[in-house]
Structures are given as C-alpha cells and as structure tokens.
C-alpha cells in the first residue's frame, strides 16, 4: 500500500470517514494512482527548483573565481608591457650619446 495514499486518506476527520472506510478508499487503485501522480509531480517540481539552484550557485562560484583569475592575468600582462616599455626607454637612453654636464640622459621631463 502506498504510504502517501494512506497518509492522505486516513486523515479521516477531514473527510468524516471511519478508519475502515479510509483504509478502503486508500486501497482503491484509482486513488493510489492519483496520489502517486501528485507526489511525483510535487517531487519533480522540488527537484527542478533544487537543480536550478545548484546550477546557479555553482555557476556563480566559478564565474567569480574565473573572472578574478582572468583579471590577475590581465594585470600581469599589463605589468609586463610596462616593464618592457621601461627597459626599452632605459636601453635607448644608454645608447644615446652622453651630453656633457648632464648626469642623467635627456628625457621629456628633463
């Protein structure tokens, strides 16, 4: 006997049924099918809600972490570019002929 059907039907006070009548209704295959279908529909809806929640939570966690790692990589690339630029300027300054009386190579701010 489906325990869900018994639970539903044996709530005898609601339907004014005696326990024997409730048992008889609960044993009715049509009632059992209806209750089973109802329970399955409810469980499926609950499962779907949970599934959406799990997918959403895991997606957010991954998006946040991946976004941070990508930002970190971008920042490292930018740093490397700055460093290369600085090295290039230094090399250029070293290669430039020294001007008498100046301690530092000539530049835009000099």
């Amino acid at each position: 006997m489906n325990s869900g059907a018994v639970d539903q039907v044996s709530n005898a006070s609601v339907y004014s049924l005696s326990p024997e009548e409730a048992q008889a209704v609960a044993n009715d295959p049509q009632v059992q099918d209806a209750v089973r279908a109802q329970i399955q529909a409810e469980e499926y809806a609950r499962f779907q809600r949970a599934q959406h929640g799990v997918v959403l939570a895991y997606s957010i966690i991954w998006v946040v972490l991946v976004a941070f790692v990508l930002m970190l990589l971008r920042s490292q690339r930018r740093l490397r570019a700055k460093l290369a630029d600085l090295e290039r300027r230094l090399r250029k300054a070293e290669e430039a002929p020294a001007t008498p009386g100046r301690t530092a190579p000539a530049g835009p701010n000099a």
Partner: protein
Amino acid sequence: MTTERETMSAPSNRLPTTVVAVLLAVVGIVAIAAYAVSPTLVFYHARLERELGLSQKIFYFHVGCAWSMFIAVGVAAIGSLQFLRTRERAWDDVALSGAQLVVVFGIAVLTSGPIWGKLAWGTFWVWDARLTSTLLLFLTFVAYGLLRRFGGPGADRLSAGLGLFGAGVSPFVFTAVNLWRTQHPKNSVAVTLPPDMALAFWISVLAFVCLLVLVCAARIGTAHAESELDDLVLRATDLGLYDDGASV
C-alpha cells in the same frame, strides 16, 4: 650579499625560489586532481540528503569557499600585522592580496549561501548571527579595498588596521553558530557526515584551499611586481626617462 631590493621583498624571498616553485607545483597538481574528482564525488558518490535533497549539493562548494575566505582573512591579518611592525612594503602586498581574496571568496559564499537558503528555508536571507557577521566581515574587506583605492597617502597603514579588525571579527563569524541560536547549520555538520558525503566534502574543501594558495601566491607576486615597477617608474621619471606619471 643582501641588497636593498632583497630586503624589501623579504616575505617572498625567505624560502629559496626553487622550493617555493616546487611547493606551488605540488599544490597545483593536488588542486587539479581534487577539482577533477570532486564533481563526481559530489554528484554521484555522495548520497542525496534525505530532507534537503539535491539542494544540499551546494554545501560542498559553499563551505570550501567559506574556508578559503577564512584562510584569506588570516593571510591579510598576518600581512597587516607584519606591515605595521616592520613597515616593509612586501608585507603590505601580502595583506592586500589576502584582503582581495577575502572579497572574491566572500562573493562566492554570500551568493551560493542565499541560493541554498531559498531552497532550504524558503527565503534568501535571515538576519541571524552567522549571516550578519559574515556580511560584516565581507564589508570590512570591501572597505579595505576602497581605502586602498581612494585613501591617498597613509591608506596602507589605515587599511592594515582595518585588516586586523577583520581578523578580530572572524572568530566570532566562525563560532557564531555555536554561540548564538542561528538558522544556519552548525559547524559540527562537517564532522558528522556519513563517509560518502565526508569524502566529497573534504576533497572539495581541499580543492578550494589549494586554489586559494595558488591564486594568493600569484596575487602576492603581482602586487610585489606592481610595487617594484612603481619604484622603477618613479626613478625613471626622476631621471627624465619616463613621462607617463608614476602610477602603474
């Protein structure tokens, strides 16, 4: 011979570079292995929790993120304390990296948690001690970031104090579920799990902690490089070699 630059970069250079590289490689391999198996363990090996059903699966990654957040608070606290003691910029880099990771993992915790709360409790948020104190901790480190960004000169010392405040709050966040009656599950849930769920849980936590170590090391390296480049740009600007300003 120890140069000035080596002294400034003390925290990252106390261990030989090769040892650090090997340790990080080992952590990386462990992280890859843990992340490779954890989804299978979480979704196929661990049983469905009887009352919460599928929504309980959020717990495995949510707690992993929360542990990583607490470890990042520790990193920020150590960096802040050492910076206030020694005034070495390298420790400030450590504190800044830890603080940023608190915010990153905090976002993950404070979004995955309410999603689970909606499924389990029927509401996204309740103002219980654990949730409220976690939000406070998160906002403390958001304030840390804002202070660093807009605080101007002296913001490093002020934010170090804020980092220590955050570290002072974190034990209350962790023990809030035991100290007060909260809707949030207790910490003891983790040690009372059946073996199949416990395996999935600990592997997930391991994966997130390893990820934290790797990202933290990378972030500290970047922060340190930013500081060094700032110095170089300043020097180059003084010499008239650079006219892009000092900010990198």
